[in-house]
């Protein structure tokens, strides 16, 4: 956009200057031509080329021309073998044949700038006709000023127009980008402002808003379908589970109790999968953003490390959470807690006994950076993308749903941040970045 505007201005400037110089030099050339023509005319009048050369006759015609109204302002000099024989102007230096210039240094009375045409007439006679160009030069100066003011203001107006245009377009684009950013952040209720001017911009904004309206409808529909499916399936599933539970405690079914409880466990896993799906749907809808408040991450990290301390101890893991400075983000305390707990639980569940899990929290300009690092076996680089995929599982046949990390990623996104997996050499390092509200150093 800026490059385009600058290029446009550059070409406009070039074209304007070329026009100005073109007109200037063309005018200059025309005037020069007119002067030359006039000198030639006067010279031919005094000494026509088709008659025999005669000093007396030429001198007589010169005298006539000097009195004539049309040619009275011209200077004439007739020389014979270098000696001045007639004329109304005195010139000390010899003049070259053809057109040349005279100026104040030639000390011609009343002349500062002029042009001279010298013709060899034959028999040693030479006729010089001099015209004063001072009025033209004055006019030239005025013309330069006119050009400067005229073309200068054209350029200034073009610059101002381009700047204004750029600002207006930029304003509109910024308004649209803000809307897009807000929508990207999950606030689908945002619309591009319309000023009612029915301009092309307004019509574009309206079209954009219509598109957003349609997208919102589709998203709502999809959300309803997901919610509906999850709810509709959960209710009968819960009923089935309760029936299995009743059955497991029936004395008549005592022999099958273990297998009934296995079936009940499967039902429980399905129920928790639906819970996870609905939780992700809730997070992705962005509805929770309406109730964000200032949350100190360092407190959540400390609490989560403590909450999972007993579990980690039993499984032989060690959780280290070095105290960190207060780091405040705008967010949902429950979701952020779930995010941290999820990350630590993942490390506890998927690394062998004896693994060290380090919870880190540090400020970077504008960001709160949370890391969960373990020195376990890690995830191969090629499998990391799959670990973040909602339905991707790293090994077939493993129990549980694959929504742990995707949920963490959803929660990070809801808060305007992101999630990254990296090699901790050895082990896995999970980094969550969240935009910081403020921190204390």
């Amino acid at each position, binding site marked *: 956009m800026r490059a385009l505007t600058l290029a446009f201005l550059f070409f406009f400037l070039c074209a304007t200057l070329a026009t100005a110089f073109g007109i200037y030099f063309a005018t200059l050339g025309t005037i020069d031509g007119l002067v030359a023509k006039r000198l030639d005319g006067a010279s031919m009048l005094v000494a026509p080329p088709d008659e025999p050369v005669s000093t007396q006759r030429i001198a007589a015609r010169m005298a006539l021309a000097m009195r004539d109204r049309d040619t009275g302002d011209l200077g004439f000099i007739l020389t014979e073998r270098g000696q001045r024989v007639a004329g109304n102007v005195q010139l000390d230096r010899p003049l070259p044949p053809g057109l040349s210039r005279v100026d104040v240094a030639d000390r011609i009375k009343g002349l500062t700038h002029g042009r001279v045409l010298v013709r060899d007439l034959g028999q040693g006679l030479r006729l010089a006709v001099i015209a004063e160009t001072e009025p033209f030069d004055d006019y030239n100066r005025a013309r330069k000023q006119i050009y400067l003011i005229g073309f200068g203001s054209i350029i200034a107006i073009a610059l101002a127009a381009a700047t204004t245009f750029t600002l207006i377009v930029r304003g509109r684009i910024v308004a649209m980008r803000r809307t897009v950013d807000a929508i990207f952040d999950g606030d689908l209720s945002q619309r591009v402002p319309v000023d009612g001017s029915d301009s092309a911009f307004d019509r574009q904004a309206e079209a954009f808003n219509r598109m957003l309206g349609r997208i919102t409808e589709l998203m709502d529909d999809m959300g309803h379908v997901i*919610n509906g499916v999850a*709810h509709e399936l*959960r*209710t009968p599933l*819960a*009923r089935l589970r*309760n029936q299995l*539970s*009743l059955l*497991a*405690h029936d004395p008549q079914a005592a022999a099958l109790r273990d297998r009934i409880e296995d079936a009940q466990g499967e*039902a*429980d896993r399905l*129920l*928790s*999968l639906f*819970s*996870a799906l*609905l*939780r*992700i749907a*809730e997070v992705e809808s962005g*509805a*929770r953003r309406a*109730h964000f408040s200032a949350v100190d991450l360092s407190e959540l990290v400390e609490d989560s490390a*403590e*909450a*999972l301390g*007993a*579990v980690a*101890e*039993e499984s032989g893991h060690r959780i280290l959470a070095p105290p960190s400075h207060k780091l405040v983000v705008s967010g949902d305390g*429950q979701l952020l*807690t*779930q995010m941290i*707990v*999820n*990350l630590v*639980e*993942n490390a506890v*569940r*998927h*690394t062998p006994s004896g693994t060290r899990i380090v919870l880190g929290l540090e400020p970077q300009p504008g960001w709160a950076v949370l890391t969960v690092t373990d020195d376990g*076996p*890690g*995830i191969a680089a090629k*499998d990391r993308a799959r*670990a973040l995929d909602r339905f991707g*599982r*790293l*090994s077939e046949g*493993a*129990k*549980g*749903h*694959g*929504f*742990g*990390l995707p*949920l963490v990623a959803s929660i990070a996104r809801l808060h305007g941040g992101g999630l990254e997996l990296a090699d901790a050499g050895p082990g896995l390092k999970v980094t969550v970045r969240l935009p910081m509200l403020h921190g204390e150093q």
Partner: protein
Amino acid sequence: MRFPWRGNGGDGRAGVQGTIIESSGYMPVSLHLLIVEDDEPLAAQLEQQLRLSGHETSLAVDGRQAMEMVSSARFDLIILDRVLPRMDGIAVLKSLRDNQILTPVIMMTALGQARQKVEGLEGGADDYVVKPVDPAELNARIHALLRARSWTGQGSDETLRAGDITLSPTRHSAWRNGRTLNLQKIEFRLLTELVRHADTAVTRAMLLERVWNYDFEPATNLVEAYIRRLRIKLTEFGDEDPIRTIRGVGYMLTA
């Protein structure tokens, strides 16, 4: 190969195993409950299960009917759906409280709608359960709620007492048989919750909400791990284990 990432993803209450309440140490109390639910099959199942637990139930299918029934009969507790035809659950709750009807209310909210829970509690509900409701969970919450309401309070405002266990929430100290218990923050909060509901079952979900402040179900058995820790500290001097595991429900501290 690392195991798949499959951390906890939601706030389902499916973690409590089974629905049968073992009778030992658990006193069934017959209560008159009002169920306000427009989904009839669901309401029927709920009624059946609560009757199995020994309660008497009445059913209202919308908010206005609920208001009429509340004004003509006395209920021990109301189980109120958040979304109802004619008069919304929140409106029913407000109207009850405005009319000085202080019957305990358990709100039923849809899963994945955390806001409904907050609205319910702000509107004056005493507790909430997430649909589809686990009958054992609901029954435990009914008892815990009524127990808390009728708390005659052994000890003063300053201390809580259950059997030989004494707690001082203000001083953050606990004793058993006069001996100081050295408890960490979470262990102390867990014991407080158990003492407050002594002789009543407390579910895993209730403990997660009240001790850990979680509205989701973790993927690890962190409640069990802390109960084990607490048991070790409570029996350090050879005393009997006061925490009873109630199969399919949760835990109970016997006074």
